[in-house]
């Protein structure tokens, strides 16, 4: 087992998915919105990045758009695309509450996934877009993987700082007020609808950027990378880390990605045992999820710490 390699991968992927978990934390724990289609916004970012950096189609390529633009522009485009997608999907769905919102966002994600699979003109259908451009391959003495880990960690820390700043401002307190008692917040002159929509849009921006970074890291934008399972993994990470704390969201994601990476890189003797290990990983993840939801250990610890302070 190459623990250094695992560590670097965990930092990279953990940070990328950590950004998504943080955004989901903002939507769910603060905005009270159950988004069961979070993967779609991530996928939009990844595809936008791929499309903006890909060279114009040639030969067997079935995709119609490839702009061949430099990566910083594409990264901005990824964040913007996710924002636009959130505006389009949020406008009709945010009127709905609770499980209805969960189902509609889930439905939107599935429609988008099915669209990516079938519409070859966007991203080659099932094949996806391969060889997504990475910035520069020569970083001097530093290996490329460390650069990626650093970039991902930077994006996550930036997201964390911005969100924390936002939540500690009067705006954040207004959000908490809406979550805790909508009628009272309404009576105090807060527009519940508008604030919910704002949170939904704001949180989509870092998800899009993370999607772009993910496409850069894997050099691939393919429908099979963006299934409902990603949504569930993000939810599990969020719940594992305790819904109410931003650090918990990050810790939960890192823990889960570490666990997955170890299982993935473990040197198994046979294909069958690797298969079983992958299934057991699912079982353990699911069990942890159920147990954490039921006993809420992290919320209790947080409460106790608050009480003693």
């Amino acid at each position: 087992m190459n623990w250094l390699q695992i560590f670097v991968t965990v930092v990279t992927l953990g940070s990328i998915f950590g950004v998504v978990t943080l955004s989901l934390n903002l939507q769910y724990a603060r905005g009270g919105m159950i988004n069961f289609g979070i993967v779609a916004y991530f996928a939009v970012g990844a595809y936008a990045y791929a499309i903006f950096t890909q060279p114009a189609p040639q030969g067997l390529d079935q995709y119609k758009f490839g702009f061949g633009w430099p990566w910083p522009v594409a990264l901005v485009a990824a964040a913007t695309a996710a924002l636009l997608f959130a505006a389009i999907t949020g406008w009709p769905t945010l009127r709905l509450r609770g499980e209805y919102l969960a189902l509609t966002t889930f439905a939107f994600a599935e429609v988008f996934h099915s669209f990516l699979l079938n519409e070859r003109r966007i991203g080659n259908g099932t094949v996806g877009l391969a060889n997504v451009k990475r910035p520069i391959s020569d970083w001097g003495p530093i290996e490329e993987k460390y650069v990626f880990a650093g970039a991902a960690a930077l994006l996550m820390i930036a997201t964390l700082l911005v969100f924390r700043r936002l939540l500690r401002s009067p705006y954040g307190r207004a959000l908490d007020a809406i979550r805790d008692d909508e009628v009272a917040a309404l009576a105090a002159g807060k527009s519940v609808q508008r604030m919910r929509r704002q949170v939904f849009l704001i949180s989509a921006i870092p998800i899009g950027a993370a999607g772009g970074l993910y496409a850069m890291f894997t050099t691939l934008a393919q429908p099979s990378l963006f299934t409902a399972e990603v949504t569930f993994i993000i939810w599990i990470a969020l719940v594992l880390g305790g819904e109410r704390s931003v650090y918990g969201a990050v810790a939960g994601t890192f823990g889960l990605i570490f666990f997955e990476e170890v299982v993935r890189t473990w040197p198994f003797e046979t294909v069958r045992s690797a298969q079983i290990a992958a299934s057991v990983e699912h079982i353990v993840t699911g069990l942890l999820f159920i147990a954490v939801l039921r006993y809420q250990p992290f919320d209790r610890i947080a409460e106790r710490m608050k009480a003693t302070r």
Partner: protein
Amino acid sequence: MLFLQFLTTGVVTGCFLILATIGFSLTRRVEGFLNIAHAELLGVSAFATWWLNAEMGWHVVLASTAAIVFTSVTGLFVARLIYDPIRERGPAVLLITSTGVAFVIGGVIDALIGTGIRTLDIGLATSYEPFGIRITNYQLMVVALAVIVSVSLALFLNRTRTGLAIRAMSGNPELAASRGIDVRTTSRATWLLSSGLAGLAGVMLAVLATLTTDLPFAQILQVLAVAILAGLGSLYAVILSGLIVGIAMDVSVYWIPAGYRPLVAFSVVILVLLFRPEGLAGTRAA
């Protein structure tokens, strides 16, 4: 002609969806939450049938009966162990928890079965061609079972004590309890019934399709589509919505590529939630 063929297949798909959704809808009515893990119960039943039939050499009727009973008990067990203790935390937490349950059941099936495709040992389907429309005996069986299940469920819910108790509980649990209905027994009866129906749908899945371990969970998308169209509760509306979604998906193949079938189902969901969130049947429970 081709159009009529797609329409016929659509009816068969619709009947399968009715079987798969009725249990889901029943849980939603009585227990008050969307059980995402319902789809994995289809898998439990489908692979139990496959194992007993193809591996152990049981006759398919015996194997499927055993599988349905097993699924039914599994459903009740999961409910008692996992859902009951967190009932008071509300439908959202139950919904999220049920995705965890789906993960666990799916993982167990994956670990036990592994990858590859599986088929039951039941021989090839015989096809008939009345009026030039092709339909197989297995497809006819799905249609017949959907009719039988719908009718007997309607009779059960309207004529028997337990059935009436289930309906009372879905209407208003507190009132039902105060009128002397044993809420716990009724809840358990509902879990047995809805999981058993998932089991039946799972057997149908095994009969109609070649099984892979990710197939059962893929059904949740269509089940949700039907349940939402039906208004997340009403049982009679499930029958109508099942047929609408099934026919819409299969007939759409006439105009657009077959890969878009799930997209059609989900466009239905989005349209319904946007324009008529209460579903076809409205707020009135059937």
